[in-house]
C-alpha cells in the first residue's frame, strides 16, 4: 500500500498529463476546475488515467457523480438543504465538506474537487 505522499506524487503526474499543467501548480489545495482549468470532459480522461496509474476500478458516477442535484428537495435558493448535504456526504465520503457546510452554495460544489480529494479517494480505493 503506497503512502499518502506516494499517491499524491502519482496524482500530480496524472493531472499534469490530463490537464497539461505544470507540476508545481498541482498543489494539494488546488481545485480541479478553478485552479487547474479542468472541464467536464477532462473528468473522463482523469478517471481513465487514475484507473491505469493505480490499477483501480472506478465505477461510473462514483468519483464524479451525475445528476447530483436532481432532486428538488436537495436544493433551495441556490443552496443545498440539510437533505442535500446529507446526500452529498453519502455520495462523496472522501471529500472534505467542513468549509462547504458553512455556506453550501451550489456554485461552490466544484471547489470540493481538490487534488487532495483525489488523493483521499485513491487512498480509500487502494485500502478497500
Amino acid at each position: 500500500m503506497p503512502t499518502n505522499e506516494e499517491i499524491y506524487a502519482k496524482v500530480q503526474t496524472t493531472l499534469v498529463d490530463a490537464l497539461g499543467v505544470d507540476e508545481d501548480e498541482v498543489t494539494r489545495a488546488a481545485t480541479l476546475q478553478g485552479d487547474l482549468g479542468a472541464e467536464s470532459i477532462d473528468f473522463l480522461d482523469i478517471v481513465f488515467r487514475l484507473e491505469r496509474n493505480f490499477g483501480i476500478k472506478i465505477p461510473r458516477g462514483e468519483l464524479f457523480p451525475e445528476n447530483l442535484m436532481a432532486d428538488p428537495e436537495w436544493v433551495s435558493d441556490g443552496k443545498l438543504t440539510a437533505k442535500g448535504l446529507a446526500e452529498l456526504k453519502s455520495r462523496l465520503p472522501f471529500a472534505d465538506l467542513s468549509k462547504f457546510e458553512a455556506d453550501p452554495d451550489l456554485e461552490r460544489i466544484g471547489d470540493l474537487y481538490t487534488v487532495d480529494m483525489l488523493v483521499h479517494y485513491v487512498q480509500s480505493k487502494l485500502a478497500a
Partner: protein
Amino acid sequence: MRWIWIDKLLVFRSGEFARAIKNLTLAEEHLHDHFPGYPVMPASLIIEGLAQTGGILVGEAGGFTEKVVLAKIPRAEFFGVACAGDQLIYEVTLKDLRSEGAVVEAKAFLNGELLADVEIVFAHLDNSRANQIFGPKNFVFTQQLLGVLDLAKARERAREAATSAEPDPESNGLPHQPASSA
C-alpha cells in the same frame, strides 16, 4: 466532399486494434491550398483519420449502439509531413473502454517511419440527452463511414471463399496486408 479520411481498413481486430490506409492525392482540394505549390496533408486531417479509425474500433466494440464522439486529444506529436502521392498507415489500439467513453493510442506511419503519435479520448454521448437533440439516428456512424468496415468484411468473405486455407489468425477476420502494399 465526403468526410471520410481513411480509404481502407487493412486489419480489424474487434475491441483491440485497427490498421487503415490513407492515400494522399492531388484530387483533394485542400492540398492545393495547404500549401500552394507544396501540398502538405494538414495535421488536423491526419488526426481526423486516426479518430475515424479509432471511432469505428470503439463503436464496433459496443455494437454501434453508442454515439461515439471525439472528446479530447490529450497529446499529439508530429515528426514530419506527408505530401501528395504519399500513403499513410494509421494504427489505432484501444487502451480503455467503459460505459462513458474510450481512449485509444493512435499512430500514423509514412514509409515505415513514425509520423504522428496521438492519444484520443472518445465520449459516448448520453443516449437520452443526445436523442432529444439529434434524434435516434446515429449521426456518427453513417453508412458512408461504416462502408469502409463493410467493404473490408466483404473482401475478407471473398478471400475466404476463394481459398480453403486457414485464415491468418493475426487478421481476426479481416485481410492482413503489408504496409508497403499500394
